[in-house]
């Protein structure tokens, strides 16, 4: 029973991280209708950048981390301006192909720069584990949950109250109307990529601290697909819930597997099976708008 409970807590924590990455994925989709297959590489690049600052430059975490975020923000803007802006007006399938290309390119670039083996982060927290309600939980997980919740609250505030957040929502709703209000759609696109890259990098660093940094991190981007599609491609709340559901499912499947089935690696595929079943009954996801097009 303790194992189940432990796994559920794990599921919640990992699920919150999925939720955060799913949100940043939805952000790009909502603003510019681009399905970003390179989302996982944002995690990877963010994690490697932070790792590099912490090991090669020996910077303390509290300096290296903000620099990583600033770098990722600039990276998102540059990527949008240089690679994706010229693609505006092209068929959506071409744009998606470009993101797949970017994914492969950055994957290879990171391997070339940092090697193919997982590298551990230097120790960041003084204590490795914490005791939460009688459960042993890794400190970094607790911190990651706090960060995830903070990011979610930040997103909520940003889109509800800030001037730029409202402008981004207006852009997602109708680009022509947004322009008639004096909003530069190009700037909004660039901003959505910047925020998306930055938030993904936070998740990348957290996962990197737990598991070490390696190209396996970009699989996180793939895992986010079931979360996003489950929630309905264009819903931020749906993305968060989808992330939590996928996280919980994974760990629950792991429990079932380890207790009775012993097939091994159930947790890797279980979310995808459930995804298929849910889509059979709710083809637009749990919170998606009906008229959106699946790609």
């Amino acid at each position: 029973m303790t194992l189940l409970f432990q796994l559920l807590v794990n599921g919640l924590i990992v699920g919150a991280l999925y939720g955060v990455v799913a949100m940043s994925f939805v952000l790009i989709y909502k603003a510019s209708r681009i399905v970003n297959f390179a989302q996982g590489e944002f995690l990877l690049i963010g994690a490697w950048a932070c790792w590099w600052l912490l090991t090669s430059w020996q910077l303390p975490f509290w300096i290296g981390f903000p620099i990583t975020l600033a770098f990722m923000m600039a990276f998102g803007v540059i990527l949008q301006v240089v690679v994706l802006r010229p693609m505006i007006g092209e068929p959506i399938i071409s744009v998606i192909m470009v993101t797949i290309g970017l994914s492969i390119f950055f994957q290879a670039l990171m391997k070339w720069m940092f090697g193919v083996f997982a590298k551990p982060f230097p120790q960041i927290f003084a204590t490795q584990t914490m005791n939460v309600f009688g459960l042993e939980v890794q400190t970094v997980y607790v911190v990651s949950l706090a960060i995830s919740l903070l990011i979610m609250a930040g997103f909520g505030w940003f889109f509800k109250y800030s001037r730029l957040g409202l402008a981004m929502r207006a852009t997602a709703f109708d680009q022509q109307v947004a322009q008639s209000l004096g909003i530069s759609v190009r700037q909004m696109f660039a901003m959505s990529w910047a925020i998306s890259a930055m938030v993904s990098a936070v998740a990348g660093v957290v996962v990197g601290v737990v598991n070490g940094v390696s190209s396996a991190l970009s699989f996180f981007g793939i895992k986010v697909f079931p979360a996003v599609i489950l929630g309905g491609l264009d819903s931020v709340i749906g993305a968060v819930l989808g992330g939590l559901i996928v996280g919980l499912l994974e760990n629950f499947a792991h429990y079932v597997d380890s207790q009775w089935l012993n097939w091994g690696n159930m947790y890797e595929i279980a979310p995808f099976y459930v995804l298929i079943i849910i889509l059979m009954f709710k083809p637009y996801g749990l919170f998606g708008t009906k008229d959106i097009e699946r790609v």
Partner: protein
Amino acid sequence: MMNADTAVAPAPTPTTAKAPLLSVNNIEVVYNDVILVLRGLSLEVPEGEIVALLGANGAGKSTTLKAISGLLKTEDGEVTRGDITFGGQRINGIDPDQIVRRGIFQVMEGRRIIGDMTCQENLRLGAFTRRDGGVKDDIDMVYHYFPRLKERTGLAGYLSGGEQQMLAIGRAMMARPKLILMDEPSMGLSPLMVKEVFSIIRQINKDLGVTILLVEQNARMALQAATRGYIMENGKVVLDGTAEELRNNEDVKEFYLGGGNEERKSFKNLKSFKRRKRWI
């Protein structure tokens, strides 16, 4: 195009010696590089006035407004000839968001409010280009003009057509523009609501001193509110004058206001009948 004896003599000379706030000189607009919509259109909008732009469907009224506001770009249209000057500066070819910053705000046809946001959020977005601290006060000012918007706390998509039009006008007021381009504010509204909307248009013109270029199908209401008017046909201005001149013009009476000279409606009057066909 028109016979000189029936048309009001073109009177492009503004009453004041001052240059008009907006002047459109002989513009040509092409969509998708091939479809010619405006063929040498010129008009002037003096500061502080309400100017009506009338014409049949497809005459190019909305295109004219989009050419001025720059939104033409978002529909693959382009001003290929002529120029548009606003406050003495040439503005054609500028991105629409920059044109809003210069003080021209278009209230698009069909209201186009943001349905999944509240009234308040829509109004805040109207003030997107402003960086001063007066936004809160201006929201109160808009609520003062449209008290019923304040009561609606739900999503703007659930507002009635008239309320959405009020919100669209309120959103334009939030930008504190010098010139508002209004595209068919009466569309789809009940006669009572049309009256209300037009009285508000006159009110904000008077209170805020904002200049308004008004595109309308409802010629009667438009010529009541406006000081001057232009009549378009086939991408060109065919008639212009003060609102009063246009109201009393036989052709305008016949084709836009209804009624007019009974005799002229007869098929026997062939010349006029021909002209009618061309007008509609």
